[in-house]
């Protein structure tokens, strides 16, 4: 049954979260606590931090994230295909060739437009 197969995974996630939290707790317990404005200021090569570090970012990073979603979906489609194409045979191969062909058009467009360039 699927539940008994996934119970260890759920437990493992819980245990690893506990290990991480326990290490942090141990550090907080054992370590000293001697703060100070200079010590707790964010690192900026010795300068005073003169503005909020959370700044607007190059839109290119968003583009990478969007393209990642699209390719991730493509992988999600490829997984069941890779499992069954041998049983179904040529039609499945052709279907995936068309699927990848269409997406390669998008990829080539992306490439030619220079969306993959970092400058």
């Amino acid at each position, binding site marked *: 049954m699927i539940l*008994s*197969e*996934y*119970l*260890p*995974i759920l*437990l*493992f*996630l819980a*245990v*690893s*979260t506990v*290990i*991480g*939290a326990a*290490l*942090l707790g*141990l*550090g*907080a317990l*054992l*370590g000293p*606590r*001697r703060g100070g*404005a200079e*010590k*707790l*200021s*964010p*690192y*900026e090569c010795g300068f005073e*931090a003169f503005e*909020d*570090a*959370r700044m607007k*970012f190059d839109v290119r*990073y968003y583009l*990478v*994230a969007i393209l*990642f979603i699209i*390719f*991730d979906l493509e*992988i999600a489609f*490829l*997984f069941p295909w*890779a*499992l069954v*194409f*041998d049983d179904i*045979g040529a039609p499945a*191969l052709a279907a*995936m*060739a068309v699927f*990848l062909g269409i997406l390669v058009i998008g*990829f080539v467009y992306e*490439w030619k437009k220079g969306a*993959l*360039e*970092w*400058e």
Partner: protein
Amino acid sequence: MVEVVKGAIDAIFAGLPMVAVVVWTLVKIIAITVPLIVAVAFYTLAERKVIGWMQVRRGPVYIGPLALLQPFADTFKMLFKELILPTNASRFLYFLAPVLSLAPAFAAWAVVPFGEGMALADVNAGLLYLLAMTSMGVYGVILAGWASNSKYAFLGAMRSAAQVVSYEIALGFALVGVLAMSGTLNLGAIVDAQKGDAGLLEWFWLPLLPLFLIYFISGVAETNRAPFDVAEGESEIVAGFHVEYGGAAFAVFFLAEYANMILISFLTTIMFMGGWLSPFPASWGLLGEPGPWWLFGKAAFFMFCFLWFRATFPRYRYDQIMRLGWKVFIPITIVWILVAALIVHADLVQVGA
């Protein structure tokens, strides 16, 4: 030994079979995590020693015979250091970030088989689960960078996030190739599909050579290790996303990173190098026997490769990293998935024979 522990647990929780199952599973989880943590500790020592030898230095020598106690000294040092919470940082997210990077790095081990049928969770969709866990690792990095409210941390987090997601695509495509060859998502069955009379020539590295190389190199990039360590690049942005972290919080990030490196080494072995199968033909007697020792030996080699790369290659530039991921790896993997499918369709490779 195993039987004794299991018998004892069953006896204690005689009336509560469900509780007995949970306790037994917890024991098994501890039997995986404790050796993993110890392995990480000695991997750090090995790293310093190996890189030392490669640079004609001696590396650590003082603490204990062969510096074997060095990892423990480091651990205690980190635990006794102060936990810093920078001004302007978001307290909750700042301490959540290391936990969020450790949890998936450890939980991924739940489906890794160490030998024939020796996996904690022998699930059908093991490979898919691994990919999902890897994709969650990026949260720790993004949150650490943002919660610290420090410029270097923020820059490092952005660099790292974009790099990690780019290489994840190549990683996923490479796994599709393995899947097409083996026809199963179960990691144990993937190893079984690499069985054969010809020993190491039956493994998937041969028909999937480009995917094998791309998988391991993407794994190095995914873990932000040299030569792809621009996210940390100590000469440019000091330490990247974890610049503000010290003491135990830093130790948790460290643990996650090294656990991920060991995980990538094991997975490369399982997917492409025959897992626990012997490299020699079965007719060679004892040498041809499969067993967990082969898995550990092969994984140790890939772990050594991580250190070797670090000592050998200069750091890539960021635009080169992105170009390698998007313009080289992704096209090659797409083409090779179709090649692998045609190989299987034409029955050119005997799978699991």
